[in-house]
Each structure stands twice: as C-alpha cells, then as structure tokens.
C-alpha cells in the first residue's frame, strides 16, 4: 500500500489496527525508543496506528517527529493529575476493605487476577462515588491507613501517605483512562504503560504485546536504589537483610508487581536481545511468550563503503555523543596505551560534543595532559559514511547500552568492533549461542572501564590485517543475516497480522 493510500485510509479508519502505548518518549523526546516507534510506523505503512503517550503532567514540549500518514491519533494520559478537589463529606463506600486488599495485592504481588479484582472492586465503587472523588475522600483516607498497616507499619506514615498518593494516583489514572479501541495493543515498556496494556487485554479481550528495549523494572530499580530523593525512614545501616519495609522497597516492589502483571497478561513479550530475557523470566514471564526481535539497519546505505587500506594510518574510532555514559575517557586512556605500541595511531571521537560541555572539556584536558593532540581527534557531528572507509577498528566504551546501532553500522561496513560487555554487544559481535552456522567473532568484547583490555584488543586487529578482515566479514555476515530493518519490520508485520485476526476473547494465561 502506498503512503498516499495509507493517508487516505487514515482519514477514514476509526479503529486503528494497533494502539501503541508509550511512556515518556514519543513524540517529544528524540532518539532511542522514539526513533524506533517512528521507524516501526513508517516501516508498516499498511498498518494504522494510534498512540497513547503517558506523561507525568502536561508540558510545553514540542513534538520532535512529523507524524507518519498511518498515525491516526496521539492521545495523552497524565499520571500525576489524578484527583482534583478534596471531598470532605460523604460516607465511606461499602467494600473499601476489599478494595484495600486487592490494591495491596496488585501493588505488592501483581498479576492478571489481582488487576482484574481491582478493576472489579473499582467498578462497584464507581456506582457510589467516582474514582476521581474517591481518591480525595474520607474513603481514600481509610484506604491509605489500611494499606499502611498492612505494608509498612514501621515506616513514617507521613512519607507513606505521599508515596501512596503518587503510586496509586498513577494507577488510578491508568484504570480510569477511557480505553481507545484497537485490534492490537502494543506497549513499549512495563510500568504504567504495561498496566494500561494489561487492562486493555482484560477489558477489551483484544491481544496485547510488549516490546521491551531496556528492562523498565530494572531501570527503575537502579534509579530508586540510588535515589537521594526517596527518604529512608528506617535506619537499616548497611544491613542487606533487614526485613523492615521502607519507601524504597515499596516503590521497587510496586514496579515489579506491575511488570509481573504485564508479563502475565500480554500475549507476547519481545526484547531486542537474549540477555534481556533473563530479568523477564525472573519476574515470571512465561517462556512460551518470550521472543527476540532485534532492531535492524538499512544495509544499502553501506554497500559502497570500502575497507580501510592496510597501509593507511592505523585508525580506531568511537562513534557516539561525548557524554559520561559513553565513557569517552576510557577510550582516550585506551588510545594512550595503544599509542605506546602503535605510534602512528589515530583515534577519532565521532559525534556531537555539545550535550555535556563540561565533560567534553574534561576529555580535552586529558588529551592535552597526555599530549595526544595528534592522536585523539574530536570530529563533532559528521556524516559517518564519510569516515567509515578510513576506520580499521570501531570501539564502544559505553557503560550502558541496549542495542547500539553503531555496532550494526560498523558491521555493515565490514569493520571489526571492540566493545564493552553492555546490552546486546556480545550477542552481535560474538553471535548467539544458537547461531547456525556459526559465523565467527566480529571483534572483541571487554569488561567495562577496562582501557588496557580495549587497547590490547585493538592492537590485535591493527597489527594482524587478516584477522581484522575476517572479523569484519564475520560481523558483516551476521548483520546481514540477523540485523536488517527489513527483517525486523517483517517480524512485526507478521505478528500484527496474526494477532489482529485473532477472535476477541480472554487470554487464558492472564488470570482474568
């Protein structure tokens, strides 16, 4: 179907094929998941989409993506706007104890059955009082006290109260939001977006799927465990096994429970690479639902790129933004070590430098300190296609990644890669354990922040041209076999088609 046809269809279609549920990204935050959503919609022009974008509250952010023709509607669900004015009068509705039990179960254990129960209890409650009013009523006060007694009797009630408001405010927003109609619901994370997808699955009987780029629960867990803004109301010292429950535990447990609910309720749980399935399994995702659909790139962009000549200046390159998470300082240190063995070395840092000016200045200071002016060169933002033909080895020193496209791009250009063991780097460079036939290593994987390991690995490829060429070819073959955008789009096309044709009904695994 042509784009014009899709546009004509978009104007007439009322119920989209797919409702994407996204949290904190598209269409306002560029890159990463937003770019992937844009790619997905443009890659499937015959499929109509709507989007529910979850945000804390309305903001003045401007859309960073032109909507494709097959995007029918973008709706917003605000998580921190629930409950308007206090309700000072009104009897406490019957069944508040049951609601308290169900909510406690949903926020501590999760699961499709717990979500169903909460939806049922709230449905009964709505006959007496709207959810919006309930949240600010004496009934809510009774509810919070009941849940406090159940969950955190040691902790500070004042802190619990506000955490409860934030936690359940988000939950109630999701449960009260008018569910948009669609043939398939597709959430891009667990959390509140995952809960909305779970609710859609239970309420509409239509299939729901999840594609996790990073593991949302783990990201929140890391964030919460390190956060200074979460008050520690109980002094546990450095004990790791203190059973007393505190706010930090409450938040972490709630996100885990929401993830469990999403994993249990959705029909398919997809990730970008195999390593990400482990935390999903730990949170109870059914093995039968798990699958991997890796992101891909357009290989045709790289067909004309020639390999860097053996007698050219030995060149390594890091392609990425100059920001701390890319650990550019380790790259500079690796270049310093490598230069001791390869004096002619050139080390490019290819990417924008203005995102963290202070960090960029620190990197430049290190370059100056070690007298590496002629070796380490910051190119700023450039067209990487102009540079790939001169690079012998690509390097990635990131502390955290999901599925970095730069590894695929290097592979498409036949350049071997040395990367830290983050995200799917190992899977792309060394291949999955079930790869048949095995294509060989496309480079080397090192520990994080290990400049000496990176330098050693680069030295091998710079000194041994045959090894470099064979690694580059192995990576090129692997990318062509498993990481093309055509392949990824095809997988989603088939999945959507299969799910959209399923009859409406309950998911036997969901517990609803």
């Amino acid at each position, binding site marked *: 179907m042509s784009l014009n046809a899709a546009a004509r269809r978009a104007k007439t279609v009322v119920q989209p094929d797919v409702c994407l549920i996204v949290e904190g990204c598209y269409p306002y935050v560029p890159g990463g998941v937003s770019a992937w959503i844009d790619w997905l919609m443009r890659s499937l022009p015959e499929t109509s989409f709507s989007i529910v974008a979850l945000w804390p509250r309305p903001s003045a952010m401007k859309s960073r993506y032109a909507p494709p023709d097959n995007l029918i509607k973008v709706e917003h669900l605000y998580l921190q706007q629930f409950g308007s004015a206090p309700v000072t009068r009104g009897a406490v509705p019957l069944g508040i104890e049951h609601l308290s039990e169900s909510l406690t179960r949903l926020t501590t254990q999760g699961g499709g059955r717990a979500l169903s129960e909460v939806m049922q209890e709230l449905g009964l409650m709505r006959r007496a009082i709207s959810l919006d009013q309930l949240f600010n009523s004496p009934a809510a006060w009774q509810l919070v006290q009941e849940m406090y007694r159940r969950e955190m009797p040691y902790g500070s009630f004042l802190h619990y109260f506000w955490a409860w408001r934030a936690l359940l405010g988000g939950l109630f927003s999701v449960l009260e939001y008018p569910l948009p109609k669609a043939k398939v619901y597709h959430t891009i994370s667990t959390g509140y977006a995952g809960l909305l997808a779970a609710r859609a699955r239970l309420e509409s009987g239509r299939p729901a799927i999840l594609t996790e780029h990073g593991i949302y629960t783990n990201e929140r867990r890391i964030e919460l465990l390190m956060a200074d803004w979460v008050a520690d109301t109980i002094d546990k010292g450095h004990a790791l096994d203190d059973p007393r429950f505190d706010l930090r535990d409450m938040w972490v447990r709630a996100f885990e429970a929401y993830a469990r609910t999403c994993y249990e309720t959705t029909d398919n749980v997809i990730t970008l690479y195999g390593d990400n399935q482990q935390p999903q399994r*730990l949170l109870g995702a059914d093995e039968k639902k798990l699958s991997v659909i890796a992101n891909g790139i357009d290989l045709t962009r790289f067909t004309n790129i020639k390999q860097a000549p053996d007698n050219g200046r030995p060149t390594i390159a890091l392609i990425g933004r100059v920001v701390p998470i890319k650990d550019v300082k380790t790259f500079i240190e690796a270049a310093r070590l490598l230069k001791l063995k390869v004096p002619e070395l050139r080390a490019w840092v290819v990417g924008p430098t203005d995102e963290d000016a202070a960090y960029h200045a620190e990197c430049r200071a*290190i370059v100056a300190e070690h007298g590496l002016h002629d070796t380490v060169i910051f190119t700023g933002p450039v067209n990487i296609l102009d540079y790939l033909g001169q690079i012998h080895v690509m390097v990635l020193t990131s502390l955290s990644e999901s599925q970095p496209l730069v590894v695929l791009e290097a592979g498409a250009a036949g350049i071997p890669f040395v990367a830290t063991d983050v995200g799917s780097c190992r899977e792309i460079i060394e291949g999955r354990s079930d790869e048949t036939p095995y294509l060989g290593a496309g480079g080397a994987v090192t520990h994080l922040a290990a400049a000496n390991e990176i330098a050693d690995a680069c030295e091998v490829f710079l000194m041994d041209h045959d090894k470099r060429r064979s690694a580059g070819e192995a990576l090129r073959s692997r990318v062509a076999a498993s990481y093309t955008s055509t392949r990824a789009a095809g997988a989603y096309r088939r999945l959507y088609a299969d799910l959209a044709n399923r009859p409406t009904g309950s998911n036997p695994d969901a517990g609803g």
Partner: protein
Amino acid sequence: MSVAATNNGGAILSRWATRDVYGALFANVGEAIVALQSSAASIPAIWILAGHLAVVASVATILFNARPKGEDLTIAATMVLIILVAGPVGAVASLVMLPFVKTTNPGSPVLRAWYKRLSSAGSVGPATAMHDRVAAGRVLRLEAAPPASFLDVIKAGTLDERQTALGLMARKFHPDYAPALEAALRSPEPVVRVQAAAVVARVRGDLKERIKSLVSAEGHVGSPRPAARLADAGELYRLARCTLVEGTDRAASEAGARALLSGMLTTSHTIVNASAQPDPDTALAIEGYLLAEGRYKHFRVARRVNSIVTRGGYGIRLLKKSGAQW
C-alpha cells in the same frame, strides 16, 4: 485575627484592633442616627433602609480596607453581619463583644506554631525525635548481625543482595568500596553490570565534586580548625588512591593534601599534635607527605606518635623495648 497577641501571651491592642473599635463606635453612632430619624420624621422606609445599608457599608470599609493579605477576617465579618441583621442592637453587640475577643484570640504566631506541630513539620528536640524513632521501631537494630563484606556479596550474594549492596554503595560511597564496585563491573550477570556501571557513573561525578570542594576549601584564607584541615587532608589522600577517581582528579587530590599539610607540619611540635589522632588515612597522609619532603626524622616522630595513639600502652611498651628516642 483582628487582635494580635504576642507569643508569650501578653495580648496588646494592635492598630487592627483599634480599627475594630472605630468600626464598632461608628456603627453605634450611625445606627443611632438612623433609628432616631425613623422615629422622629416621616421619612419613607426605603430611605431608612438605605441609611442603614450606608452605615453597614461604611463600617465594612473601615474594617476591611487595606487589611494585610492573609489576615483573619472572622471578627470583622461577624461584626458587619451582626450590624446588617440587627441594626442598632447589632451595633451595640459588636462593641460589647470586642473586649472578650481580645482576651481569647490567639495571635497568628501562636496559630502558625500550632499548625506546624499539627502537620509534623515543626522541629522536635533530638531526645523526642530519638524516642519517636525507638518507639516506632525505626532505629538501627543493634542485635542484627554485622553487615557482610560488600566484596563477598558482589561475588557470591543473591541478585537481590547484590543490587541492594550496589544501591548502598551509590548512596553512601566510601573509597574502600572501590574493589567491590570493580568486581560488580565484571560480574557475569548483565543486570549487576548495568547497575554497577550506573553506580560508577554517579560515584565518579560525586567524587569529582567532593575533590573540587575540598581543594577549593584548602585555598581559603583564614584556615578552618586544624583538626578539620587534617581530616580534609586525610580524605584527599584517600581519594587520591581511589581507583574510581580519574587521573587528573587524583593528581589534584594529592596536591590538595600536600598543600594542606605543608601549611601545618612545620615543627616537631605540630607534627606530634597532628599525628596524635587515630584516623589511618590522615596518618598515612602525614607520613607520605613527610617522606616525599625528605623529612625522615619527622617521619619517625609521626610514626611513633601514631603508634602510641593507635596501640595505646602496647605501643609505648614496644617503643621502650626498641629503645627509640625522639
């Protein structure tokens, strides 16, 4: 509140109370004139009503005009309503009630303190706070087993323990945790590696800021207390050896520690005083500095003093046995 009271209970009439009195007096005079007019002359009832309303409006103007924002208007509003409804009788009543209101109204600072206490935002004494925490069961459990070594936890703990330990390392970082953090970066478990990387990124930033603040404090004229300067030198020395601190920061830290000590360790007397404290990092910083400066005699003095301080009588016996003199 129309009558302000001081915090110690000595109520005084403020200018707002004076305004209330003027308002009440004006109401009495005005309503008396209206009442007299209504009985003495053949004035239409509508004009009598208009006169009454004019008095009420004037009283309202006196009472409400230019009140500060947030002022309690309860008394003023009550007066206006009484006069509006009861006319001359209301005017007399508003005058009579003022002395009672004056003695019973708490002042706004008193109210503020009360609200603060109600909302738990008020500060309580340390003893009360401690009592509250003990009673609620929120204090550190002294009977609990000592915390496990973070390095052991990272190597052999459960996933949950490893993640909790990494969270603690991020929030309460100490340079001694660096080996545990480095082990976590090499963990075969991707989840642990990712979290360790996030902790490293945060800790590096925190350490950079800490070094910056310690080094800039070192340059201040009018030095802080010697004990604080020594503690700073010890911390800088410790940070200079932390593997998570980047090269340039390590050098800055080392130089900062040296600069702090060079201004203090000028004589044997100051060296004895400085060495007589138990923090091992500060002791090492002092010894390292003296060695680097080639002041070997002072170095020996520092070691012996520190040995006595840290080992007590045993240290003195050792010194006597060795026949050392200083």
